[in-house]
């Protein structure tokens, strides 16, 4: 047999499309743009605060050490909520796409849809009437973010090329091996996108749980609103927004690191 390159470039391009796997690009300098912009925004805000004469209330609200503690707390709460959502939604997504348990799909999707459609603020208010603390907030915000992960898990697993699965089965891979060594690796880009959405939703909605004692930067935000201090509101809003963007960026980096090299673009 002879070695020959037959139309390597154009055919390779077609087959990449045919595999139905969404390609991810590799790491590069462009990945530093987001954190750089965030750093500039935060620096600008700090400079702005330093030029202003803060009154006693504002000064106590915007105390650096307190803001830092709240930020760290905010990150942990968001990550914990997102982690819980992944822990529930990914297994459910797997069950929905297995032939034997496919029948649960309507139930699971109904719950997911209700979770997202229900007004979060209203739920927080109602639940806040009888249940306070981290777990109450985590449950409500988790229900809100659940659908994003669930839907992406289902789509991510379903978009795996059926011919690849047929080959895997035909070669004698067990269903478990196919799930963990073929389906999940190929679904990482899509499931990852859902996980990032959940994380951003968590960062953005944690402040709403302030009245239930969730903690995080919501405390400063609502303090600013309560005392009618625009400087405080602006600062807290900006920090929350920057945090959301940075968390999404970090999620993107993790996602790309988990994406197998074969389905990343050059």
């Amino acid at each position: 047999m002879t070695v020959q390159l037959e139309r390597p470039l154009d055919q390779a391009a077609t087959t990449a499309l045919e595999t139905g796997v969404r390609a991810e690009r590799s790491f590069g300098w462009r990945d530093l743009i987001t954190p750089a912009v965030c750093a500039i925004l935060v620096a600008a805000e700090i400079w702005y605060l330093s030029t202003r004469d803060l009154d006693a209330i504002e000064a106590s609200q915007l105390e650096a050490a307190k803001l830092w503690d709240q930020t760290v707390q905010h990150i942990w709460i968001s990550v914990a909520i997102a982690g819980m959502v992944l822990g529930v939604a990914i297994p459910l997504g797997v069950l929905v796409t297995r032939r034997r348990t496919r029948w649960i799909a309507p139930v699971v999707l109904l719950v997911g849809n209700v979770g997202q459609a229900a007004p979060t603020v209203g739920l927080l208010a109602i639940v806040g009437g009888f249940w306070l603390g981290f777990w109450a907030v985590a449950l409500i915000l988790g229900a809100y973010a659940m659908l994003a992960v669930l839907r992406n898990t289902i789509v991510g697993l379903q978009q795996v090329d059926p011919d690849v699965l047929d080959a895997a089965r035909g070669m004698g891979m067990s269903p478990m091996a196919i799930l963990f060594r073929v389906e999940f690796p190929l679904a990482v880009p899509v499931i990852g996108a859902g996980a990032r959405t959940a994380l951003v939703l968590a960062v953005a909605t944690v402040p709403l749980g302030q009245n239930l004692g969730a903690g995080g930067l919501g405390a400063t935000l609502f303090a600013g609103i309560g005392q009618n201090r625009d400087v405080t509101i602006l600062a807290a809003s900006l920090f929350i927004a920057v945090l959301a963007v940075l968390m999404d960026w970090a999620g993107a980096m993790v996602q790309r690191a988990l994406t197998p090299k074969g389905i990343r673009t050059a």
Partner: protein
Amino acid sequence: MSDSTDVATTPKAAGSGSDAAGVPIVLDHVSKRYPGTKSAAVDDISMEIPAGEIVILVGPSGCGKTTTMRMINRLIEPTSGTITIDGEDVLSLDDVKLRREIGYVIQQIGLFPHLSIAQNVSLVPRMLKWKKQRTNDRVDEMLSLVGLEPAEYRHRYPRQLSGGQQQRVGVARALAADPPVMLMDEPFGAVDPINRARLQEEFLAVQDKLRKTIVFVTHDFDEAVKMGDRIAVLDQGSKIAQYATPEEILSSPANAFVEGFVGHGATLKRLQLERLETVDLRPVTDADSAAPRVPIKATLHDVLDEMIAKAQESLVVVKDGKPIGSVALDDVLARVRELRAEAEAREGA
């Protein structure tokens, strides 16, 4: 692709099995019926697939040829009947373990896009817990076998390969654990015609060495003639219309369905199976010096085509670039008459 054409005169591996690495497969009254359908997808098929042969299942779309093939490695469970591989009932085996002993190649190839070529090829050996060194050596051996330089291709990913190269990897992957049996579902169907012809020939050369038992599904009768030691022409419900060597099917189709499926020009197709080597060559004369040349490996179909194309009644036959004799139109016609006589004798018998 060597001697795959000599089946009629010297049945390739029929019954012998002595030098065959493959094992026989027997389908006994096998049916597949899907719930809620009136007619069976596969209706009571029985056939014996001899060790070390390429048996082609050919037929129109929906005849159940792929279903029949997929029941052998239990990707589809038969509704009734038994299938044995080397005497062992496949239904009594663990389906996952069974499939590791059977090579599997499909038209869409189905390489794992996230794994390198080496990882793709080594998948079954790794599942069978081969030693690392043995697995690595085997990957290199298989890639070389299908004409891909190991050093160059080992670390590539499927999307960096052309369609033809991907199918070579598909074949290498199926052969990696040295299974006695291979199932191939239109393996070269998605490749362009030029590459398809090359892959077919290369595969026949590989099979010549390996002597696997191969069940090969196609809807292309010409491919069936080219690749098969035996061909099963299937009608709806996988009813076997005829199960015979390509020569027999071409020269004496069993019924109108087979005749229709063989299509026009059966005699010309028959000549595709005849090598120039089966004809006694004439010595080269001075008159031939300007005649066009054909290689000794050519088929009589090629010879005839060349004669018509060049409007010549005589061609010079070359082996390794050197003239070794000549062939005339009369020689081809004489061989056609012989073949007819053989076919009639077979029908009379």
